[in-house]
């Protein structure tokens, strides 16, 4: 239980940090920021890799989680990069 309290603390601090970090972003960058944040939510891939293997059902669930998280990660970062490379000042 102590572990959960500690991690809950980390969770709260991270949310406040996130709110501080993002609050002054120019609107030009709203889309890349959203898309970049979306790629970061693919961190679920780490969670998917930590799953345990016990029987066929678990393997299918793990495979699905890895597959979809990977689409999120690769797609998210590439699209963000493509978008950012278009923003130029002449």
């Amino acid at each position: 239980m102590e572990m959960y309290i500690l991690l809950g603390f980390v969770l709260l601090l991270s949310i406040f940090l996130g709110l501080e970090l993002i609050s002054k972003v120019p609107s030009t960058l709203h889309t890349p920021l959203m898309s970049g944040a979306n790629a970061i939510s693919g961190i679920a891939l780490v969670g998917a890799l930590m799953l345990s293997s016990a029987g066929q059902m678990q393997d299918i669930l793990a495979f699905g989680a890895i597959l979809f998280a990977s689409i999120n990660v690769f797609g998210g970062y590439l699209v963000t990069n493509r978008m950012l490379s278009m923003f130029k000042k002449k």
Partner: protein
Amino acid sequence: MENIANIQVIQNIVYIISSVMFILGIKMLGKEATAVKGNYLSALAMFSAVGITCLSLDIDLKIILAGVLLGGLIGSLIAIKVKMTAIPEMVALFNGFGGLATFLIAWSQFNEPSNSVFQHVLIMLTIYIGGITFSGSLIAYGKLSEKLKLGKGSMITNIFISFFYLSMPALIYVVAEPSLSGLIPQVPSYFSIFLVLTLVAGIGFVMPIGGGDMPVVISLLNSLSGIAAAFAGLLLLNNVLIVAGSLVGASGLILTIIMAKAMNRTITNILFVGYASVSQASSSEEQGEVKPITSDDAYLILENASSVLVVPGYGMAVAQAQHVVRELGELLEENGTEVKYGIHPVAGRMPGHMNVLLAEANVSYDLLAEPDDVNPSMDTIDVAIVIGANDVVNPSATEEEGSPIYGMPIIEVHNAKTVFVLKRSMSSGFAGVQNPLFFRENTRMLFGDAKESIGQIVAEFKD
């Protein structure tokens, strides 16, 4: 035994380093000069976190390789092939897959034999948020790509909405079930029912929300996918999942609030009420005659203008007119005219949509201005060209207290000397509110496809 403990220490250290890189990456992503590097840094953080996790695996390596390679291939192909105009729905789709991944993770944890009460609660919350993110994002994808036409008011939508409301007591039931077993009635295979119900609930959550409100919905779903990942991190006792997930949750929340403010509405109003059909009668008084012009006339006026403000909206994206708009802008500048682009935060279908389109067409981003930058000096603008925007330039928002959009910050083009409105027809915008701008003394309507109309003006400039 000691070996395993060592690996865990190394993993946790790398997770902390990854977390720091995610934080710095997202900070850098918020500044124009460092945004590209920020994205790389965040990708490096992801790579490190994933890599170090592979040191201790329980699942078969074949499954992992198959999943990562296949997922990576699909994701990369979509990302490379997608047209820039289709970015909003792509972001929605990727986001949904992230939500689905957390949904599956929590499902898998439920099958573990020894879950504490607290873990049980976390599992149910993660499934709920992840599931709603997934199916809600799919509906957002369908709406944004205009494959799904069902909206508020239809019979099917109402059925889905009722399932959304039903899902909330269901969540309370599944959360409480193990602690109160014996006290509350048993529902056989309640977990399977709950899994399905969350997915149906997500559909009911997004389906009634109109296309014009999509910037808010996408930001919110983005936020939810982060929160789901953070809960999954609590469940798996993994700190990098918690930090990265919370950052995404917070950034999505901020964007949601910014978008809602730009519409002068509360988030609950956007999600659960929609634009009310109130005060229909109020805006009828100002209807007069519209003054259509041809592109020849428009050219003559533009040729003599010394300052021009372009105000794009979703119509520019639909007509794919951003390239020809940029061309017109360059020709005007060559002619000695000062050109600026006035971008409303909620123009388009996602936060910053217009910025992306204009950037794709090679418009320099220092020409892009926000409403607060252009409104004070609007009376010095000779011509404001409104391309496929409607509600964001509706003067009712500042002048007519009974209007549903009253109070919404707009780009006040009606104060410019002349306004060109490029429009396909006289239909009203997403808000369904009449726009008195069209009947103003200084407004000229240029009917037709925006791309064609501007193309004709460009051709005249070249002659």
